[in-house]
């Protein structure tokens, strides 16, 4: 493989990896950095299972080249745990049974975190449209939306 060395920050830590120029950031994170929390559900931006934050903005890592991560900051589901504690969203997803098979869960957690950061008190509609880029085939979204509502409520109280 003729590749490029990429220096980036992932979940707050400096990370270096080498990848071919035409490899997606999704593949680079999974195969070069070893972070398998991002999932390939489609590889074409239609399912959101590969969701990450890129400089704080929600993005599909399958639609970003690995080399585009140079000098940027990336956030994945593995970065939600802080100081050894689960994020409120992670707790609420478990509590509200917002996952069945769990394959879409990492993507939803990243997307929901960004949603609540930008809009701490969203309406049901705002949650649904904000998460429209994440497909779930198991739950019908009902308990996911309720978990996000519960997390939002608690985060507004705790401010985290």
């Amino acid at each position: 493989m003729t590749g490029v060395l990429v220096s980036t920050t992932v979940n707050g830590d400096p990370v270096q990896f080498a990848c071919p120029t035409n490899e997606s950031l999704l593949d680079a994170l999974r195969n070069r950095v070893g972070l398998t929390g991002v999932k390939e559900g489609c590889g074409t931006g239609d399912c959101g299972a590969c969701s990450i934050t890129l400089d704080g903005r929600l993005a599909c890592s399958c639609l970003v080249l690995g080399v585009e991560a140079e000098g940027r900051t990336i956030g994945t589901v593995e970065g939600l745990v802080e100081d050894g504690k689960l994020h409120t969203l992670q707790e609420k997803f478990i509590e509200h049974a917002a996952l069945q098979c769990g394959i879409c869960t990492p993507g939803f957690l990243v997307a929901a975190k960004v949603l609540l950061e930008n809009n701490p008190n969203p309406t049901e509609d705002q949650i649904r449209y904000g998460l429209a880029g994440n497909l779930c085939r198991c739950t019908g979204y009902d308990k996911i939306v309720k978990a996000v509502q519960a997390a939002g409520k608690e985060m507004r109280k705790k401010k985290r």
Partner: protein
Amino acid sequence: MRYETPTTTKEAATLLYKEKGKAYVLAGGTDLLVRMKMDMIEPDLVVDIKRIPATKAITKSAVGFKIGATVCGAVMGEHSALVKAWPGVVEATNLIGSDQIQGRCTMVGNLCNASPAADSVPAMIAAGAKAVIVGKDKRRTVAVEKIVTGPGKTSLAKGELIEAITLPARPPRSGDAYLRFTPRTEMDIAVVSAAVSLTLLRGVVKSVRVVLGAVAPTAVLVPKAAKAIIGTKLDDAALENLAAACSEACNPIDDKRGTIEYRTKVVGVLAKRAAKIAYQRAGGVL
């Protein structure tokens, strides 16, 4: 595959011009990477223009807005002055994909991908937008409706890329709107769409542009539809004439997203609804 990150538009143009193999511009990547993944293209060179300052900003001046080629949909939606002046252009761009897509996709990318169903294009054309094109030796400015020449094809010459889109200064009592039909609430490509941009004089439509999407190989500007509502306050008869003109002007296909019959009928429905929204945004009372 070579990956370059030029810092000026001219540098980008030169790279594109000189490339003997297949060269592509990368802005948001939400079309380019899909085509690579589906093995539709195998680039020899990708020119990432996101580090070119001239492409990164939204600037407002007396002659209107200038939106850089790498400005993403989300940033456009967060720009309150732009949203106020051109709600139709912004809502059209903001309809592209999910929040994940919105943090990356660009109007210019949407335009140059040249899909007949592109969301931002009808709204840009209705607004009278122009494209600032940079080649290795010169620049030119061209109306957006002259960019797309067919599905997947643009009028850009080898070595040219679009640096920014300009929107003209907005007279008072103006409004625009974009509507599209999709079977789901999100994540679909438009089956049919309509954009209307108008200016009122004492509650009466003074000037208007009506543009249809996903009903022909390229977006369709429909002067007859515009004529149908000029000088009116959008009474029922005027709206019916508008709808009929739109249905007449379209040239759709049957495909996996819709039928000829469906698109022809619904384009008229959407054009009427978009006209009403634009009218109300311009301060008109229905």
